[in-house]
């Protein structure tokens, strides 16, 4: 029962820990982590969009500036003279154009061509200028010519040494007042300049393309395919894959859908972080679970130890070990319990002691009461004898009275409850002497006392009722009686044997007497025998007492066994 209880309690604690501490923490942590992850994801997307918007607004703004300028060129009084006059002072036009270009955030190189495609003015450095047979230039001029009221925008690639430069050209035909094409204005936006401005954004990849997916500006070259086009291997509405990496992307369009701005943010790092983080958390929680279980076990063990201590103490108490104090120092309620228990134990012992005291006193009282039964009965008989003696033998009557008064005095004297046998026998002899007066030669007796028994302590006049009994019944039956009193020591016991020749008692009567003797109340008329037995057993316990037996048909033998002691009796009943 005890062991079962312990397991149950421990399990209870462990379960409580796991249920109310560990699992909520786990759920909470996973929740927070996931929320954080989702939030970061969201932040990345937001940032991406913001950056994209920044770039596209910037580009839109700059391109609009150039467009406006191109549209106004034909009205400019600074530019037209250069194409119309014979020997124009180009410095004014240069000043105007230099000023314009230097004020723009997106730098460009400007060109003014005549109607034949010859360069009239340019800010380009000598080795970077167009040659008139340049395919790109021819192409631009052709387009500008065919739609003189439109602004032509094109991405061109030129070779300059080992580098392939990307140039985004914006041009328009210059018309005179007669709406005739007299020349062309061209702004070449150099992609590298674009790079410098756009690069300071916090996106992983930034790409600006034209409507054919040709790259104008790119932050990384690895994303381009062989034709310098930007085509991802896989993409859907929100994500695209480049070189097996996943990116969140956002695309905006400007300039009538001829320019696209892509901003890409890598999600692989965040995804890896999330997975890694979860794994890490799982490991941490495994660790936590193990340690909490260990803690739970230790904790419950220490608490149940206390409980178990208490349980086993109570059990021992049940078995009667009244010295099982409990020692618990756990500074908690269990310690309180053990203190209460110990106090209770002390109380219990006190009560029991009191009880015993009470019992002993009541025993003593009972004994005294029993002793008191001796006296009237005895007197009664003796007076009977005296009645005759006074008349028949007055001299002996006097000595009988003296004898009786000695005996009575002895028996009343409550100071001495237990006396030496040798002293007590004197009075037994006196008693017998008195009886002899009464019965004369009808009564014969012998007394044999072992030397060893002489100094033994016996309860006062313990044998007297026995003798009285034997005389009475023996005489009743046969008219005479012979008594033999033998006292000896046998096995640490004082054995008093009284044998008579009164013929004995019928077996069934004998048995019923014996039975009655051992009852706690005397329901018989055999007061004497009962008193002896009760007295002995109250004083000495059930190991000692009286034994009756028939000696064939001749008589009865009564044996009294008492503890052999030459000192005053120690209360052996305790």
């Amino acid at each position, binding site marked *: 029962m005890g062991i079962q209880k312990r397991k149950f309690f421990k399990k209870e604690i462990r379960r409580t820990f796991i249920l109310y501490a560990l699992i909520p923490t786990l759920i909470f942590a996973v929740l927070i982590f996931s929320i954080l992850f989702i939030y970061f994801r969201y932040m990345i997307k937001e940032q991406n969009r913001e950056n994209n918007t920044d770039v596209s607004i910037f580009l839109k703004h700059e391109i609009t500036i150039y467009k406006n300028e191109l549209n106004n060129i034909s009205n400019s009084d600074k530019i037209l003279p250069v194409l119309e006059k014979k020997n124009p*002072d*180009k*410095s*004014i036009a*240069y*000043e105007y*154009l*230099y000023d314009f*270009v*230097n004020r723009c955030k997106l730098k460009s190189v400007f060109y003014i061509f005549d109607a034949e495609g010859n360069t009239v*003015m340019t*800010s*380009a*450095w*000598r*080795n*970077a200028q167009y040659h008139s047979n340049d395919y790109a230039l021819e192409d631009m001029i052709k387009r500008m010519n065919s739609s003189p009221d439109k602004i032509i925008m094109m991405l061109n690639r030129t070779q300059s040494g080992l580098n392939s430069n990307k140039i985004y050209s914006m041009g328009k035909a210059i018309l005179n007042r007669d709406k005739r094409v007299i020349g062309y204005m061209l702004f070449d936006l150099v992609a590298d300049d674009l790079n410098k401005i756009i690069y300071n954004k916090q996106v992983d990849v930034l790409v600006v393309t034209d409507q054919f997916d040709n790259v104008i500006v790119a932050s990384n070259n690895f994303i381009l395919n062989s034709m310098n086009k930007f085509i991802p291997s896989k993409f859907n509405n929100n994500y695209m894959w480049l070189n097996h990496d996943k990116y969140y992307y956002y695309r905006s369009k400007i300039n009538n859908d001829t320019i696209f701005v892509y901003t890409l943010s890598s999600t692989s790092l965040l995804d890896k972080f999330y997975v890694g983080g979860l794994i890490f958390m799982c490991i941490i929680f495994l660790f936590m679970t193990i340690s909490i279980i260990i803690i739970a076990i*230790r*904790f419950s063990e*220490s608490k149940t130890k206390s409980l178990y201590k208490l349980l086993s103490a109570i059990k021992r108490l049940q078995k009667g070990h009244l010295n099982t104090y409990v020692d618990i120092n756990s500074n908690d309620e269990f310690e309180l319990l053990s203190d209460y228990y110990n106090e209770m134990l002390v109380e219990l012992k006190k009560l029991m002691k009191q009880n015993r005291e009470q019992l002993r006193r009541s025993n003593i009282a009972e004994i005294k009461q029993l002793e008191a039964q001796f006296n009237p009965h005895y007197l009664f008989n003796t007076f009977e004898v005296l009645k005759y003696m006074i008349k028949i033998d007055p001299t002996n009557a006097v000595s009988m009275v003296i004898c009786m008064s000695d005996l009575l005095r002895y028996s009343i004297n409550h100071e001495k409850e237990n006396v030496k046998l040798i002293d007590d026998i004197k009075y037994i002899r006196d008693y017998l002497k008195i009886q002899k007066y009464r019965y004369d030669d009808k009564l014969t007796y012998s007394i044999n006392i072992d030397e060893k028994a002489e100094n033994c302590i016996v309860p006062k006049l313990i044998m007297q009722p026995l003798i009285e009994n034997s005389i009475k019944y023996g005489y009743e039956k046969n008219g005479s009686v012979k008594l033999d009193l033998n006292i000896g020591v046998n096995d640490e016991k004082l054995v008093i044997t009284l044998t008579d020749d009164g013929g004995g008692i019928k077996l069934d009567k004998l048995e019923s007497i014996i039975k009655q003797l051992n009852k706690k109340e005397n329901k018989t008329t055999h007061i004497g025998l009962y008193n002896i037995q009760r007295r002995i057993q109250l004083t000495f316990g059930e190991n000692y007492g009286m034994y009756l037996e028939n000696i064939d048909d001749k008589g009865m033998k009564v044996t009294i066994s008492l503890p052999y002691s030459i000192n005053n009796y120690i209360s052996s009943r305790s």
Partner: protein
Amino acid sequence: MKKKIICSIIGIIIIILLAIWLYAEKYSSSIYKKPISSLIVYTPNSLSIVDPLVSEFENDTGINVTVISHGTGELLKLIKERKYPQADILWGGSLTLLNAKKDLFEKYISKNEKYINKNYKNSSGYMTRFSVMPSVIIINTNLLGKIRIQGFQDLLNPKLKGKIANANPALSSSSFENLLTQLYAMGKGNPEKGWKYEQKLIKNLDGNLLNNSSKVYKGVSDGKYTAGLTFEEAAVNYFKEGAPISIIYPEEGTIMECDGVAIVKGTKNKKNAEKFVNFLTGKNAQELLDREFNRRSVRNDVGNDNSLRNVKNIKLLKDNEKWDVDNKHEILRKYKELTVKQHKEMQKKLSVDK
């Protein structure tokens, strides 16, 4: 049990703190790398010259070189403050500036001194000349139009008001050299007399004063200014790149100013420093200067490239080095004074115009 828990918590905290400290230590210490090089060179020269020359020196001698780049003024300050890493060599900066700080350097005569042109000898012993950089005027041919610019006087043309690029001589050594040239040229050999011109020029700058010499030649090449005051090498570089500029050697005359290379006093790599000085004045390096870097050599036996105008066609002025050094502070102070005065007048004019 309670004690055990407290102890283990404290232990964990200590471990975490230790880990953070170690990590921080590692991170911060990675910023301060101990230079394994055997020569620290401070130079204001541009990368286009420094890179090839230094790598050639390294390959020739096996000496590992670390280069620290800043403006001349800044570098001199760092040397004076003995900032880490401490310099062994200062390579570049006009002589006037360097001579004023002779106390920072050690005397050394290179073993190539005998090949050095008599005009460019290391007379004081502290300054070995490295190259010659005359001051020039640079103009954007697109913007010039019909304006005549052949010398300093032409820069006073009111049509050029606000269109001249000049750097603050207090911040740029090339600009300071140009200023000296102007004073000598317009003072007809006596720089004290050049201030009258200078005041007028400052007025024509119309408040434009750049803080950096590169802004001068870049600005002219990009068409931001019509003319600029700079040094020959920069102008020639840009010209060769194809910029729409031309280089004017002032008709009033120009000073063939040198820049120097000097060994810093208290250097721990004296042997390597001396090797470096010898290398820079050696025939190879000097020829490279001439061929590739658009600078003039200080050696007698290294000729001029065709791209640089022959000295015969340039009007040369002679300056008094000692006067230059002694009056450097005074010159700068006076220039500043004039600039501030001009600025105040401009302000007044603006408020009056309102």
